[in-house]
């Protein structure tokens, strides 16, 4: 399970050199624009743009494919259900079910947009160290407490993932096999309870250790953000593309009909 999104954050690229504050802000606007698209051609354009951004990010392909595989699994049901459940005229019957092109169009639209957004998100958070991204969020007026908790949670996710694996291994060593029955669920309940008890004991120690190192409820990093002209040029390009996409989506410059395929 690839949970460490910043594993390849050292990969040299224009995205990696981009001031994280400006990067998160402008890419955020782009993501919002993509989320609100309504036409297939513009959603396709967004996907191409997202692919280009991933290309620029120079992140390893296997890392990206692994991350994107989650999304594909998640979106598959839309293709299976929507074409057969769209209200109104069915084009023809498939295995006795009414098949509507408009349903397939909607599913395609959702699929394209979701894929494009996930790709852009990957490029943004994959190209900076996680703590630096979080500090950038804090500078962008995200509440300090939230940023703090995100950082802690991210850090402890790996600790508990290891702990959970160890516990699971020892459970299996004692002969546990997961079945679809009450007993398995009860064991899982106790398993989670044990993990909770252990983690609670750990929080006490963590907090004391943090206090002794001078923690005062705020993230401090030896990182200074500096934005120069080319940071703003990159932002300008991204925001301009977002605006153009929104504009042609709404006005149908490239795509006359919202209901049609093109």
């Amino acid at each position, binding site marked *: 399970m690839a949970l460490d999104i910043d594993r390849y954050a050292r990969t040299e690229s224009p995205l990696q050199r981009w001031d994280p504050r400006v990067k998160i802000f402008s890419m955020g606007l782009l993501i919002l624009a993509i989320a609100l698209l309504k036409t297939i051609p513009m959603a396709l354009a967004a996907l191409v743009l997202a692919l280009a951004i991933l290309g620029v990010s120079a992140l390893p392909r296997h890392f990206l494919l692994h991350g*994107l595989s989650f*999304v594909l699994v998640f979106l598959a049901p839309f293709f299976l259900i929507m074409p057969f459940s769209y209200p109104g005229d069915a084009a023809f019957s498939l295995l006795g079910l009414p098949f509507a092109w408009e349903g397939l169009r909607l599913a395609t639209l959702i699929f394209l947009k979701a894929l494009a*957004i996930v790709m852009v*998100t990957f490029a943004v958070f994959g190209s900076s160290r996680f703590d630096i991204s979080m500090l950038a969020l804090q500078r962008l007026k995200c509440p300090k*407490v939230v940023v703090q908790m995100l950082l*802690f*949670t991210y850090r402890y996710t790996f600790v508990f993932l290891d702990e959970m694996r160890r516990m699971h291994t020892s459970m299996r060593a004692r002969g546990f096999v997961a079945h679809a029955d009450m007993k398995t669920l009860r064991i899982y*309940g106790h398993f989670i*309870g044990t993990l909770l008890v252990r983690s609670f004991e750990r*929080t006490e120690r963590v907090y004391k250790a943090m206090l002794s190192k001078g923690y005062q409820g705020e993230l401090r990093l030896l990182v200074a953000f500096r934005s120069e002209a080319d940071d703003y040029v990159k932002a300008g390009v991204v925001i301009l593309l977002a605006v153009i996409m929104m504009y042609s989506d709404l006005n149908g410059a490239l795509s006359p009909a919202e209901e049609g395929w093109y």
Partner: protein
Amino acid sequence: MHISEGILSAPSLTVGFAGTAVLAAATMRNLDMEEVPKISVITAVFFVTSLIKVPLGPASVHLILNGLVGVVLGWRAFPAIMLGIILQAIIFGHGGVTVIGVNALMLGGGGLIAYLVWQQRHRFSFKKREFVFGALAGATATLFSGIILALALVTTGEAFNAIAATVLAAHIPIMLIEAAVVGACAEFLQKVNPGILAGQQPARQAG
């Protein structure tokens, strides 16, 4: 169980973010500095345990456990679940960035309702009390989230009615699984370390 990116309209996304901001501000009032690492560590545990797959017939489902967050963290369940959702959106692309608000309302709201249900245990006293109310809390949290998910889909357009119905139906087995796991976990914690559970009342003095 999330709403995916690219389905909801701008008004729904805005309602999601606005509602989440209000609930987050309300549930994070008087947050002690000491609670920051505590909530984070518990959130990490839930984040990790929600990766556990439970076999269900030929397929398997992931645990949601938003009810258990309510049982353990009380009102602070909302910020905890919100954090989990933000991280999932960033790390997995699970859910999505623009739907963070809606998903936090859906799952975090379930956590809050679970806490309300869990608190009702004080009105009763029988042997399996913690199991029963833990299970009820787990089930109501899942049910609430399923209903919100279905509502969000239905209000988006008629085309999504069938998906909404499918989603609701799929929540019935998940509800039962969640009830069993959360109930067992609550009962276990009551025996092992009752201080972890939210809303405990001090033991009554004898005489």
